[in-house]
């Protein structure tokens, strides 16, 4: 299976919590989660808030390490797009600086080359050139999310994890950002793990979708199949709520 980018096997994860009596115990958030993600695929992950979607992301990125099971990355350095474009960009710097930062850290290009790549990426994600000199708070929500995508893309990842990337945006802007992500996938063959509570958005973008409830994946199928013939009652519930 050389076209896999990510494989998760029997992942169980928990948090250590302290109750009001000061006693510590473990709260299991993910239970026996398994899935694979193929090259160039957009895999949706849906479920109500509090079902463990974000915990799964944190595990995949290595930000949470209290887990059992296997997470196998077939690619280097997955990138992430956050829900809130207002807190994910460093407010102290200009957009140009933020886009250039991964290249500075990488340290293999001179200033002129970095500049060229930044301009190239800005164009690819549809960011007007004058935005590069502005700080994030001088940008609209949609533009900020374009910057986030740019920061991810400039590192040439093969996997991008997007945690509710459009839920803070209004519908017109949502559609533009979804189109951008789709074109990124089509042109560059990047895989996406796309987390959302919004089934309409998942329907527009994803190839395959997993439904999560109480830390388990209760149903998984291709988007047309799942939307036409949902098997689980919980999936039907979600679908009827989305109409």
């Amino acid at each position, binding site marked *: 299976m050389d076209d896999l980018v990510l494989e998760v096997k029997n992942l169980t994860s928990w948090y250590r919590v302290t109750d009001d009596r000061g006693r510590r115990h473990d709260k299991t958030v993910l239970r026996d989660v398994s899935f694979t993600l193929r090259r160039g695929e957009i895999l949706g992950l849906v479920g109500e808030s509090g079902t463990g979607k974000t915990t799964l992301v944190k595990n995949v990125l290595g930000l949470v390490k209290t887990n059992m099971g296997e997470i196998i990355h077939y690619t280097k*350095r997955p990138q992430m797009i*956050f829900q809130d474009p207002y807190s994910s960009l*460093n407010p102290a710097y200009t957009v140009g600086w933020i886009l250039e*930062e991964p290249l500075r*850290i990488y340290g293999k290009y001179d200033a002129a080359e970095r500049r060229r790549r930044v301009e190239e990426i800005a164009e690819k994600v549809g960011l007007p050139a004058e935005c590069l000199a502005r700080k994030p708070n001088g940008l609209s929500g949609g533009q900020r999310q374009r910057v*986030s995508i740019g*920061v991810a893309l400039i*590192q040439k990842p093969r996997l991008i994890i997007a945690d509710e990337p459009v839920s803070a945006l209004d519908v017109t802007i949502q559609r533009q950002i979804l189109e951008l992500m789709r074109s990124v996938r089509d042109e560059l063959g990047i895989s996406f793990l796309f987390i959302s509570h919004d089934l309409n958005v998942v329907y527009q973008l994803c190839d395959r979708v997993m439904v999560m409830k109480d830390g388990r994946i209760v149903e998984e199928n291709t988007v047309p199949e799942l939307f036409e013939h949902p098997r689980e009652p919980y999936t039907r519930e979600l679908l009827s709520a989305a109409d």
Partner: protein
Amino acid sequence: MKKNTFLRVGLVLTALVVGFIALGLVWTPYAPNAMDFSRLLPPSLAHPMGTDKFGRDILSRVMVGAGDTLLIALGTVVIGTVVGTLVGALTGWYGGWVDELLMRLNDALASFPSILILLVLVSLLGGGQEHMMLALGIVFIPSYARIVRSEFARARTQNYVRMAELMGASTARILFVHILPNIWHTLLSAITIGFNNAVLAEAAMSYLSIGVSPDEASLGYMLSESQSILGSAPWYALGTGLIIVLLILGVSLIGEGLQRGEN
């Protein structure tokens, strides 16, 4: 540019005082330690701030003394800010036992009255400008560390920090390139307040004659001298106090202006 009266007045005032001090480095109307028989003269054209009980020109002494005070205050702030920022950044970022250890040390340092610590340090190190700076700097570390720590602890959970981690940035780069500029405005107002406290603390130390030596004409020492002759020569205290007030007022206004400009 937004109109920022506080900042402007503060900058002008500070520039005037610093200019006055800078002038004192190269030229004073009289040699600051030159004595003659014109003792305790009230302000006149020849001696704009009068003379002290040894007949020394107060204006000349203030020019030189304010330089000493400014130098000590700056040194104090630099030591306090640099060490405090390092301690605060590490404790705020790492949390856990690093936090416990350093912050308990910090608490221990902060729980003694600062004047007591200063007395101990100065008696251990000896007097003189550089020791004053060091002693005051150490006393100032806890307050900076505390401010910086809470800012770093807050920044740690921000998504832009997650982004930097995903870029593969080193911890040092995240702390000082990604986070530090975001807490700069908080730090800056702490620096301006700290600077003023340092000026006052230096004056207080010299006033208690545990700071710089008498021939080093520090403002605090001059104030303490002026106290005994306040009735007969009030201009001594006025001239000296005026410079302290102007210096502190100027820096305070800059701090205030910066804070308002931020909002």
